[in-house]
């Protein structure tokens, strides 16, 4: 496989929330939940996005409008050409029998794909989806049985996903947690899992450039592992040894930012 974008037409666009859209591509990729693709807009940039939908011959990425690149992407119409490269990264496992998925903000994308896979495998899965506000909350129609919460109470329960996780653990014998979202949320998820002795996997976000483990931009301290290659999904035991987790990351120059 060459590490080059393959140009494909946008097959469809779905509005998921005020600032969130899914872009579909009628293009086969062999991807597992938790993996990402690099999306290239010629003469603009190329950024990583978690795969949120996977069907026969079609996949989708769900994107939150957060900056100049995603603004350009939101100008695109069905039929427009963009580049897809990947999939990349280490996916989520499927271990556990009574499983909680904790999704925050645009971290919902890879967990949506994982949820469907775990369901197909016949596992008992509880999905918790949270966002700051309703304009950033997705998949209410796709997952009617999920627990939805917003920080401001504008949709679903008022409160944090971690509160929903704690009450879920109190009434269910959860043996595995998968989480993706803001690091401050995942830090709490890790704390809860440690307190209750539950295994977990978390998907980390870092500034990814090449996407395939060469440039070193997304390496985490002190292990020096590449998030794009050895992650983005890490086991609990590895996360516990990543000292920068919940504390800082690096920007596009390599400078540490909190």
């Amino acid at each position: 496989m060459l590490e080059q974008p393959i140009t494909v037409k946008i097959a469809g666009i779905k509005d998921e929330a005020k600032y969130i859209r899914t872009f579909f591509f009628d293009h086969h990729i062999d991807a597992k939940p938790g993996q990402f693709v690099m999306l290239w807009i010629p003469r603009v940039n190329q950024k990583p996005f978690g795969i949120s939908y996977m069907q026969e011959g079609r996949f989708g990425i769900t994107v939150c409008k957060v900056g100049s690149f995603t603004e350009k992407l939101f100008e695109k119409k069905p039929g427009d050409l963009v580049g897809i490269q990947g999939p990349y990264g280490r996916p989520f496992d499927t271990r556990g029998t009574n499983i909680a998925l904790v999704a925050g903000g645009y971290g919902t994308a890879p967990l949506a794909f994982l949820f469907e896979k775990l369901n197909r495998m016949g596992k008992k899965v509880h999905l918790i989806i949270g966002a700051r506000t309703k304009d950033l909350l997705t998949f209410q129609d796709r997952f009617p049985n999920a627990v939805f919460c917003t920080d401001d109470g504008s949709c679903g329960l008022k409160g944090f996903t971690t509160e929903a996780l704690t009450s879920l653990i109190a009434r269910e014998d959860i043996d595995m947690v998968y989480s993706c979202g803001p690091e401050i949320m995942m830090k709490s998820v890790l704390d809860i899992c440690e307190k209750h002795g539950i295994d977990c996997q978390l998907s980390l976000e870092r500034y990814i450039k090449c996407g395939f483990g060469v440039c070193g931009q997304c390496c985490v301290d002190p292990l020096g592992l590449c998030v794009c290659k050895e992650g983005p999904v890490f086991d609990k035991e590895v996360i516990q040894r990543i000292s920068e987790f919940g504390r800082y990351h690096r920007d596009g120059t390599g400078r540490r930012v909190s």
Partner: protein
Amino acid sequence: MLRTDICGIRLDNPTILASGILGVTKASLANCIRNGAGAVTMKSISKEPRKGHNNPIIITFEAGMMNAVGYSNPGLLEAKKEFSDLHEVKGPVIASVIGTTPEEFAQMVRDFVTDDFAAVELPLSCPHTPGFGTLAGQGTPEATYDITKAAVKETKLPVFVKISPNTQSLGDVAKAAERAGAGAITCGNTLGPGMVIDIRTRQPILDFKVGGISGPALRPIAVRCVYDIYKSVKIPIIGVGGIQTGRDAIEMIMAGASAVGIGTGVYYRGPEVFRLICREMEEFMQQEGIRDIKEIIGAAHA
């Protein structure tokens, strides 16, 4: 068997992480040492922070890799914090600094390169960053002499000068570096630049449009360059370009290299490439009855 030294720096083996691959953080350098590298070179640091080029910055093609990263780095002040306490890396760390003038190179060496480092490398040969390397004329014999001379004055450490495989006057550039006091020649940088165009969008894929070529396409050229330089200078050479296997490393050493740089090899075989190459070198040496890697430096010239 593989133990060697270059400019008095003791190396457990002759494999060195080349600058620009996995060298953004101290932790990733340490990871390369854990994976068997004999030494590591950090990603180059400039005076001011640089964002570098937009993505895509690195792609592969049928015969190798092409990159135009554009010297992204956090700048002198932040890099001083990142690359302190280098004993944690547990292996020799080679600094790499860039500048736009001989004075700026001198300042970078003075202000950045502490005694924690084993050596400092001056890449005068980047083919894809305006203001630096070959795009700024730093690869001529005259500029190489001036920059090397200015840098050597500022440090007691050996200065490695990284030159371009593109130039016709390879021997003259290497000699200029040697005359200016360089401790070793690193040969070389990426080739080209080259270009790959996406034919549906009709756009070059790299955001900078062109990029330096590395990997298998570069290897025979790099071997020839090292072979030529070996005849031109007396100082040691670090041979870099497309080395993926023990065979490739042995070949480069026979061409005249005292040590070998590994960059794109990390892509082909993962960070464990260092250990794999060393094992393959040892296997070959056992078969051939070579007891010491130093025996075969420049063997192809006999």
